[in-house]
Each structure stands twice: as C-alpha cells, then as structure tokens.
C-alpha cells in the first residue's frame, strides 16, 4: 500500500494567471497593460532619480550622460515611456469613472443572453483607447520629426 500522505495540489496560477489573458475579453488585456505600464512608470521614476543624481558628479559627467540619452535607442525608450504614461493616465481615467459607477448602466434582472456592465461601458473604452492612440501617434511624430 502506498504510504504517501494525501495532500491537495496547489493549483494557483500565480504570475502566469496574471500575465496570460488568453481567451478573455479586451478589458482583460487592458488590465494587463495597465499594470505593466504602471510598473514600468514606477521603474522609470527610480531610474530618473538615479539619472538626475548624476548632476552632482559635475558638468562633464552630466553632459556625457545626456549625450548617451541622445542615441536613437534612448529615443525609442523615451517614446515607449511616453506611450506608457499616456495609456496609463487615460485608462486610469476610465477606471476612475467606472469605480464611481459611471457608464456601467443600472443593475437589472439577468435574462439570457446576459448583458454585462463590461459590454455596456465598452463605447467609453473604445473612445478612451482611440484618444490614447491619437495622442501617442501625435507625440511620436513630434518626437521623431520635430
């Protein structure tokens, strides 16, 4: 007879369940993008403090660093940062509005086929995403073609 003690298997998805949006709807991907851009912006804040601290090392060190940041690679990173900030800010406005109960409709008796608040506020989602895309494109054109 097997002497192994019966124990349940830990089936928590962990980071994979957070990152992999799979077959879920558009909003599930926005959730992922909102968190990733949020973490990216926090990381940038820390790096930005380190970067500006270089000013204390003198003008030569500072200008050397600025020369490094003028390289095309850093232009691309700067643009990605800009795009992340725009997306995070506008999607944050959408989340704030829904958290205060706007654009979600009213509760009603569920009758099949069910209508969810997620679908009801989708026009707002599309408008916000279109606005974010427009700002990101305009920002890119002014950054790369001043």
């Amino acid at each position, binding site marked *: 007879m097997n002497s192994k003690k019966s124990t349940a298997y*830990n089936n928590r998805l962990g980071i994979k369940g957070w990152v992999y949006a799979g077959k879920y709807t558009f909003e*599930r991907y926005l*959730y992922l993008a909102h*968190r990733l851009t949020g973490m990216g912006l926090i990381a940038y804040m820390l790096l930005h403090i380190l970067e500006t601290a270089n000013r204390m090392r003198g003008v030569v060190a500072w200008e050397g660093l600025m020369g490094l940041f003028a390289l095309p690679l850093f232009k691309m990173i700067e643009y990605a940062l800009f795009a992340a900030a725009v997306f995070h800010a506008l999607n944050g406005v959408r989340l704030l509005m829904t958290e205060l109960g706007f654009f*979600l409709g009213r509760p009603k*008796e*569920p009758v099949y086929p*069910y209508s*969810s608040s997620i679908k009801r506020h989708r026009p707002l989602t599309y408008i916000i995403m279109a606005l974010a895309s427009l700002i990101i494109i305009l920002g890119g054109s002014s950054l790369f073609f001043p």
Partner: protein
Amino acid sequence: MSDKTTTPREITFRVRRFDPDVDTAPHWSEYRQHVHDGMTVLEALHQLKAEQEPTLSWRSSCRMGVCGSCGMFVNDLPQLACQTQVLHLGTDVVTIAPLPNYDNVKDLVPDLAPLIEKHAAVKPYIIYLDQIEIDSPTGEFIQTPDQREEFSQFTHCIKCGLCLAACPTVATDPLFLGPQALAQAYRYTADNRDCGMKERISAIDIFHGPYQCHLAGACSQACPKGVDPAFGIQLLKRALVLDSIGFGKKKPSVAKIMPLADVVKAIEEFAPPPRTV
C-alpha cells in the same frame, strides 16, 4: 431535446489527472470518444467514466446549472460542465482541468473552501441594528420593486467559484476577497433593509478588498448566471467612497416598517392581476 440523429463526432478529451495518494504533480491523459449534438461536457465525462476511466473524479450534482458544483477549466476558460456543450466548443481536442486558483483535491475536484470563507467574511446577511424590532416585530419591512432591483441581479450567485478561477488578481493575491464575496457584500449593502455598512466595512474596506480590482471583467465573462460580479465590485467601491465622505445611505431610516394592520392593504396594492384561466 438534443438531436441524437446526426452522426456522432469523435473528440479527443485531454483530462488533467491528479491522485494525491500517488502523484506529486498532475499529469494529462487523453481519451477519445464519440460525441453527439447537444452532449454536455458533464455528460461526456459520465460516459468516459462508464466506458473508459472508472477512477476519474469530479464534483457535480444538479446537471442544470443551478447547484454550481461542476465548475471546470474547459478549453482554458472556467465554465460549468453541465452548461457547456462539447460540439459548441468547436475544437477536436477538448482540454478539461480543475478550476485554477483553488487547491486541487483530486482529478477535476477543486477545494472551494476559500470561496466559502471569503463569502462568510463579508457578513452576507441582512444586518438590522434595532434588536428590539427583530425580537418583537411591529410590522414588515417594505421593499418596492425599484429598491429590489438595486441588488436583485447579485442574488443569483450560485457560489460556483468560476469568477475566482477567472480573476487575475486572485491568481497572485490569495488574500484578495475576490469577485464573489465583494459582489455579495454589495448585494447586502444595497438592500434597503440592511443597516450593516458600518459592521461590514471593517471586512471589506481593506488592502485585499475591492480596490485591488482593476476591472479585467474576466469574472463577469465567466459567470454562468449573469450576476456580473465586476459590476457589483464597482458599485461597492462607489458605496464605500460615498460613505467615506458622508454621502452614504442614511441608515436605518431607509428600511421602513409598515404596521401589520397596513400589510394586507399593501399586498392588495402589489397583487398580481386576476387570473384569466
């Protein structure tokens, strides 16, 4: 009535197996069987157990989407096995795994204890502070159809736990109260007979509470009863914000008690139309 006259199609079922007495980790087993139109995943599992794999375990009861026992991860989405038709999935290979974000007891059986514990933690019952009225009632609580509609949607929860399996926040934060409990917290908070916001707030307005939800909407997509738990969470957030700035519901005046003598009159007022047959 299902149409069994069409030719059955052969489908491969990839089923995740785990026996805690033998295995240290789950493994996948494949079975092929014929499926006819209208056959649900639950019926397919019963057939599979009867004809090929007698040791296969899962949990189910009503077979009609009411008991909420047969939640499974079917083709990478949490679904009730009894409400999911195999051929509607549109794939020749159907993968069936236990609900994620719960401990796996055996094969397709999840341990739903955390769901029930979180549900109980938000005090899912009407709290009325006037104990004298509770002990010696002088009348009945009045609730208009409009007041009922404020929370009625959320009363349809069958505690199947699909929403917690779908929630990406629950995946990384085991202490997050989750869509089911938070929607139920709103269900009772929004009830005009309830005076429990102050008692309930210590359980829900916490770090692992509603503000961890960033509206992924996966819970509402997974919910088999149209409860829309994501909606309940947003409405709960609004109720908490309004309460914190002093614009919350003024309790207990909202719950009106009608003297018993007037109840008969009210019943007549809300009575259905006379029978015609």
